[in-house]
């Protein structure tokens, strides 16, 4: 996917001005945040479970090399073909080669963020292959030439009215706004694709090492059809997706669906283990699994390692006050919200995503809801430190910080500065004690807020004076 993270500020400002986006997002905030809170009450020991989930993911990352080899052995024994790709380009090429070799002309796809990273659809289409997204959200995105704005709800930035207009235009049918009717319409349009596609492509929520299984968590049933109906199936997965056992998967699922959609369990859990066997009623004749690095090994060996625990539930963004107001697009790449503010710089380069680690209030709402305890604010702070070290911050900010740090370490200098600022501020605040307009960097504060003025003297000078009076 094209990287537009450098445009964060301008795009965020633009999104703040969109009443339609705000309507679409408040919908999400109510549904997903409240839904999660309700369903989490089913677990009387959320903190213990999340600590255990963290350990399961950490152990898997610690033993990644062994687990991936075990996965390859078992998947191969099941009759699947395992491929390895070092980066997105290699992965795209592998998919295209598999498709060409099997004379594939039509592909149906269930959701894959890795596919978004690599721009897989575009690449296959360039290669003359028709690709159809079948997840309802992804279908809306594809039909409107848009990009996803959320990990699990890619079209969450769209209102149903916008979808009604889109379907009316693309499907040439009477416009409808009832969500159930819209879904039925998409279902009717998509059904022929399911039945005629030569190849299905899915992502993977997890790879199971002990069985060589790739598995996906879905609600719409499109994933099940994508993995079973076409004669060729390709599953693409990042190296970090492997877990040792089915037991581990079922354990993590307790938190995944609850964190993601507020469901105790999703409508579908699809486990694909090898191609169709002679007595199977259905299933693909060829089953390929492509395991992709694409920057993950580098993250594994870095201070951002904990971000690889991510199980892609989206709870961090649902609960983020920034995301709730600007949506996912300003983040400028595949992964939005707090996890995106860590993964994007890690995968595409810190210099290409300067704003992301800074565009957070550090409220840590993301950190406390994360089902695998990724310390997102701490990781963002690490990235901020790297920005300072690499001189990636603006000049004025660097000078300002230096000046503050220099003074704050020198009480004599600092108290003179503070006394002056207290008096100046009081004067600026006038009779009502409010500063309506600050100069320099402060202007960003007073554009939409007043600044309560200082009361004129510092605490320390008044306290010292009091002491003098007493003695």
């Amino acid at each position, binding site marked *: 996917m094209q990287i537009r993270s450098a445009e964060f*500020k301008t795009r965020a400002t633009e999104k703040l001005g969109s009443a339609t986006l705000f309507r679409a997002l408040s919908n999400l905030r109510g549904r997903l945040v409240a839904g999660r809170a309700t369903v989490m009450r089913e677990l009387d020991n959320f903190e213990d479970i999340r600590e255990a989930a963290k350990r399961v993911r950490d152990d898997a990352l610690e033993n990644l090399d062994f687990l991936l080899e075990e996965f390859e052995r078992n998947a191969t024994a099941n009759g699947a073909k395992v491929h390895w790709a070092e980066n997105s380009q290699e992965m795209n090429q592998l998919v295209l080669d598999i498709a060409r070799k099997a004379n594939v002309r039509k592909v149906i796809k269930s959701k894959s963020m890795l596919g978004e990273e690599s721009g897989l659809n575009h690449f296959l289409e360039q290669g003359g292959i028709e690709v159809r997204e079948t997840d309802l959200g992804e279908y809306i995105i594809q039909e409107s030439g848009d990009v996803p704005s959320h990990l699990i709800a890619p079209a969450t930035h769209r209102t149903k009215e916008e979808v009604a207009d889109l379907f009316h235009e693309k499907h040439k049918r009477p416009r409808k706004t009832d969500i159930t009717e819209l879904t039925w319409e998409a279902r009717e349009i998509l059904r022929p694709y399911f039945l005629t596609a030569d190849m299905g492509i899915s992502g993977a929520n997890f790879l199971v090492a002990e069985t060589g299984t790739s598995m996906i968590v879905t609600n719409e049933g499109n994933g099940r059809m994508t993995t079973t109906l076409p004669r060729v199936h390709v599953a693409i997965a990042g190296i970090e997706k492997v877990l040792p056992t089915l037991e581990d998967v079922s354990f993590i699922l307790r938190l995944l669906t609850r964190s993601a959609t507020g469901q105790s369990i999703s409508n579908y859990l699809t486990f694909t283990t090898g191609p169709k066997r002679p007595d199977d009623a259905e299933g693909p004749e060829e089953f390929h699994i492509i395991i992709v690095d694409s920057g993950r090994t580098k993250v594994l060996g870095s201070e951002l390692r904990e971000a690889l625990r991510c199980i892609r539930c989206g709870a961090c963004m649902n609960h983020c006050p*920034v995301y709730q*107001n600007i949506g996912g697009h300003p983040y400028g790449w595949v992964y939005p919200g707090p996890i995106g503010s860590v993964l994007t710089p890690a995968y595409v380069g810190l210099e290409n995503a300067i704003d992301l680690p*800074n565009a957070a209030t550090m409220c840590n709402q993301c950190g406390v809801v994360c089902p695998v305890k990724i310390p997102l604010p701490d990781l963002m702070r690490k990235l901020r430190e790297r920005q300072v070290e690499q001189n990636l911050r603006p000049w004025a900010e660097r000078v300002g910080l230096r000046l503050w*740090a220099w003074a*704050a370490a020198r009480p004599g200098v600092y108290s003179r500065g503070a006394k002056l600022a207290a008096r100046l501020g009081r004067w600026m605040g006038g009779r009502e004690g409010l500063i309506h307009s600050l100069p320099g960097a402060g202007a960003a504060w007073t554009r*939409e807020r*007043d600044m309560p003025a200082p009361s004129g003297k*510092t605490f320390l000078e008044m306290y010292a004076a009091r002491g003098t009076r007493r003695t």
Partner: protein
Amino acid sequence: MRVGLFVTCLVDLVRPRIGFAALKLLEGAGCEVVVPLTQTCCGQPGYNSGDRHAAQALARKVLTEFKDCDYVVVPSGSCSGMVKAHYPELLNEFPELRADVEWLIARTWELTDFLVSVLKLENVPGGFTGTVTYHDSCSGLREMGVKDQPRALLSKLSGLTVREMAMPEQCCGFGGTFAVKYGDISARIADQKCADIQSTGADAVVLGDLGCMLNIEGRLRRRGDRTTKVLHVAEVLAGMTDEAG
């Protein structure tokens, strides 16, 4: 018991009354309060801006300044959280300081938590007549576990009723330098907080952090709300609001 009062740089500069309110509460409960006059800042602005060295210098300064206190009390969840939750990581390059850091974090308390958990304060000197709503500041809540303590103290004031917001734990959008780096996003988040506050119909929003206070008051006034008071919990508990004189 010797209690070091770390007033914080924002209280020192903008609302010294909060510092005196904290002082009154602590002295009233029988503490011997010391106020190191060389104190400036806990280092959080530098830490959160990625300037680790600047933050380290200030953290070391704090370590020295409060060395001879039994407790260090801070009228801020954010600055006490900086000490308790972040100094160990910030100073991890200096193993020789580990003992001092552990000593400090074991003794550092957010003001209301200290009043409730250590002093077990029964008699609150303040007075306030009317309805208030309490904003849980992010660091106080999620780093220091401050949630019930201020409410328990406020409930001791006859004449004061607490009416909760729909989302008292939602961030106000301040975020330190975030408030100026991304002023428009910050103000939008603040605006939602203000709407939540106003929908309670409370006479005042009470809170425990000056950053949130400036942000919320600044946005309330710009929205044209001249009446909803924005008060630090120490001011209310000590009876040092404007009404109290």
